[in-house]
């Protein structure tokens, strides 16, 4: 898998490093040579380049990339031009970081496949976790389906999965249970350990404090999240 990361600010460089750590072939681009020097040991290739230069971009094989993430927000013009060039070159998947709503709107018009708003996304998550402390995570799998991670609601404590009627009543499926146990360590002290039960059977009892990982259609997950 080959991914390009264009623009190596804090977000871009962290993204490039993380992808490379996961075994993805990462090609990093920035016009600032100091940033390239900083990252070159942590990615597959790194080029000092002005990404608005069409010829230069073609010369590094952007057409063969599985995806390109444009992380330029300080210069909106450069961000848009880069995305337009990549679109013209027929790049398979273009993702771009937006710095404002207007920037995002233009990126969508240009045909960017996914517009990223890291600060806003993080702020939404934080707000969610402050407002609903029983909700740990909501992940959108597709426009239709989500995964919800939440603490067991009171009405389910002590019931076996079959009796909760989650599938029939709420249309959601338990795909995993995260459960903590008190344990005695080798030194005789009491501690806490977490175990994950993947695809629990219908006979599994749900205990107080269990974290349920649920899959379902978005509207069903939304109904269930505030139970």
């Amino acid at each position, binding site marked *: 898998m080959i991914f390009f990361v264009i623009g190596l600010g804090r977000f871009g460089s962290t993204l490039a490093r993380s992808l490379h750590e996961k075994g993805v072939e990462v090609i990093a681009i920035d016009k600032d040579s100091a940033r390239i020097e900083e990252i070159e040991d942590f990615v597959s290739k790194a080029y000092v380049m002005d990404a608005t230069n069409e010829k230069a971009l073609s010369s590094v094989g952007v057409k063969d990339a599985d995806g390109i993430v444009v992380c330029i927000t300080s210069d909106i013009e450069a961000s848009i031009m880069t995305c337009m060039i990549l679109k013209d070159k027929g790049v398979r998947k273009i993702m771009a970081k937006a710095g404002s709503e207007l920037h995002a709107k233009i990126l969508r018009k240009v045909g960017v496949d996914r517009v990223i708003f890291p600060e806003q996304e993080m702020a939404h998550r934080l707000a969610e*976790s402050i407002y609903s*402390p029983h909700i*740990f*995570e909501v992940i959108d799998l597709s426009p239709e389906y989500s995964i919800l991670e939440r*603490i067991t609601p009171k009405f389910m404590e002590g019931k076996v999965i079959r009796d909760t009627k989650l599938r029939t009543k709420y249309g959601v499926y338990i795909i995993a249970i995260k459960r*903590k*146990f*008190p344990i*005695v360590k080798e030194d005789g*002290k*009491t*501690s*806490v350990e977490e175990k994950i039960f993947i695809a629990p059977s219908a006979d599994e009892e749900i*205990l*107080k*404090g269990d*974290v349920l990982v649920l899959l379902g259609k978005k509207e069903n997950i939304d109904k269930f999240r505030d139970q």
Partner: protein
Amino acid sequence: MKENIEELIDQAKILLFSQNYKEAEKILKKILKLDKDNVDALYHLGILYETVNEHEKAEEIYLKILEKDPDNKETKERMERLKNEKF
């Protein structure tokens, strides 16, 4: 009374390890009525709340222990873990 408290702590631990949290909590609270500074009972009550994901209650209990014994290593470790967990 000391013997009685030790017996109660043993009972509470058995209930805690067999995941009977409701009964374990009752006994630990009973011990703390008899001896509000009992660090063993406080620590296990903290562990109980942590296990059932009641982090705020666990933190409150651990802070009580650290007020009495600021160098309590296990409690400091538990506090550290709580801070690192997502809420």
